[in-house]
């Protein structure tokens, strides 16, 4: 994960003068940044500084009030983007009544499948062998988060947007997230992750993107 040697290619994600207003109050100011393949960027900000909102704008769920988002150099539209972007928010998007395997099958049906990996393998790489057919309701919070991480491994998205991926995870879980991020960056993916700064991103020193409220 060396940001320097990738800056000459077109950035995977680029924000130009990106602003978002709610009730005409700026949530985050004009933001300019680029995210290249192989990079993991940690976005820091105090409570209410707009981290979650920024991720929603970057994933096309909220329209930006000003400025634009470029994906591989082309403007973002919800349809184009969705092959390339995977979002993991505060809500995991898992059905509690279904098993991890059924949840992953649905995600594959909707989002597609990365080459060279199966649902079983994805579950194994988040240390959930043996839980394939247990309803998610019976899993602990940490294990549920792992299922959601398995979904990231499975769908063919190059850009991961992770909102507080460490929250509610114990130390093992935090190490797992860091390992997954490293693997993803090594094979040419990129990730933007948020944190309010109280957790440690332990593997190396990531590039940090401070988010300041402009109001």
């Amino acid at each position: 994960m060396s940001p320097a040697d990738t800056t000459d290619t077109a950035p995977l994600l680029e924000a130009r003068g990106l602003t978002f207003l709610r009730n005409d109050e700026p949530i985050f100011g004009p933001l300019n940044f680029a995210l290249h393949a192989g990079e993991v960027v940690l976005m820091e900000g105090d409570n209410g500084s707009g981290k979650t909102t920024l991720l929603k704008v970057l994933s096309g769920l909220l329209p930006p009030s000003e400025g634009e988002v470029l994906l591989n150099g082309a403007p973002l539209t919800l349809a184009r983007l969705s092959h390339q972007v995977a979002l993991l928010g505060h809500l995991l998007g898992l059905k509690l009544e279904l098993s991890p395997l059924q949840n992953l099958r649905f995600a594959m049906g909707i989002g597609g499948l990365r080459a060279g990996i199966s649902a079983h393998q994805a579950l194994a790489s988040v240390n959930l062998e043996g839980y394939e057919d247990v309803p998610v309701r019976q899993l602990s919070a940490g294990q549920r988060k792992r299922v959601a991480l398995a979904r990231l491994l499975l769908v063919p998205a190059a850009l991961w947007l992770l909102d507080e991926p460490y929250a509610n995870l114990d130390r093992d879980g935090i190490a797992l997230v860091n390992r997954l991020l490293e693997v993803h960056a090594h094979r040419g993916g990129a990730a933007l992750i948020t944190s309010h700064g109280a957790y440690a991103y332990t593997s190396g020193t990531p590039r940090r993107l401070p988010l300041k409220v402009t109001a």
Partner: protein
Amino acid sequence: MSFGSTQAACRALIVRDLTLVWRRRGDALNPVLFALMVLVLFPFALGPEPQVLGRIAAGTILVAVLLAGLLSMDALFRSDLEDGSLEQLVMSPHPLSLLLACKIAVHWLTTALPLVLASPLLGELMNLPGPVRPVLIAVLALSTPLLSLIGAVCVALTVGMRRSGMLLALLVLPLYVPVLIFAAGACNAAANGLPIAAPMLWLGAGLALSVVVAPLACASALKISLS
């Protein structure tokens, strides 16, 4: 690496929703039970005279079915919203309106179809006159999908809200009124031995129109209320 076909996406969605209903199959009976109970309240409230009940049977059944459908509507997107899968659905590369159409179809199959199938029983309970019975079934078969489609658009508008139950009723009922008028018109015509073709045709035309338009409207409404 494969991005999956739209057909596969629809299939995955239908399979998942049906599995979920199957996991909570007790809940699927709720609308029937609710309609049944509304109807049971009427003999208590009006007294058990068979002529009075028979006169109002068709209309009351229609109202009960409509209310039951309305109340079950609220659940269409709620659990998907609460656990975040609605966002995943909106972000999927496939046409949202098609996916929503699949969701609405499954919802109709699992909540309204049981009501249609139970309608002969409801008719029996309420002393429904003989010639109206087959007409009532046909009317319900035509109008419940129409109600589901119209309702889905309004639910999509209120989906992000807390305490949306009553508001949903307020939004939906004015739009349900025309459907109710034609449905009741057909039943009344049947009760009086008149031809029922005209109201049935209106219902059919409405259904055909809304099958095309409602999923699109639903998709736009959903995008508005998620943003």
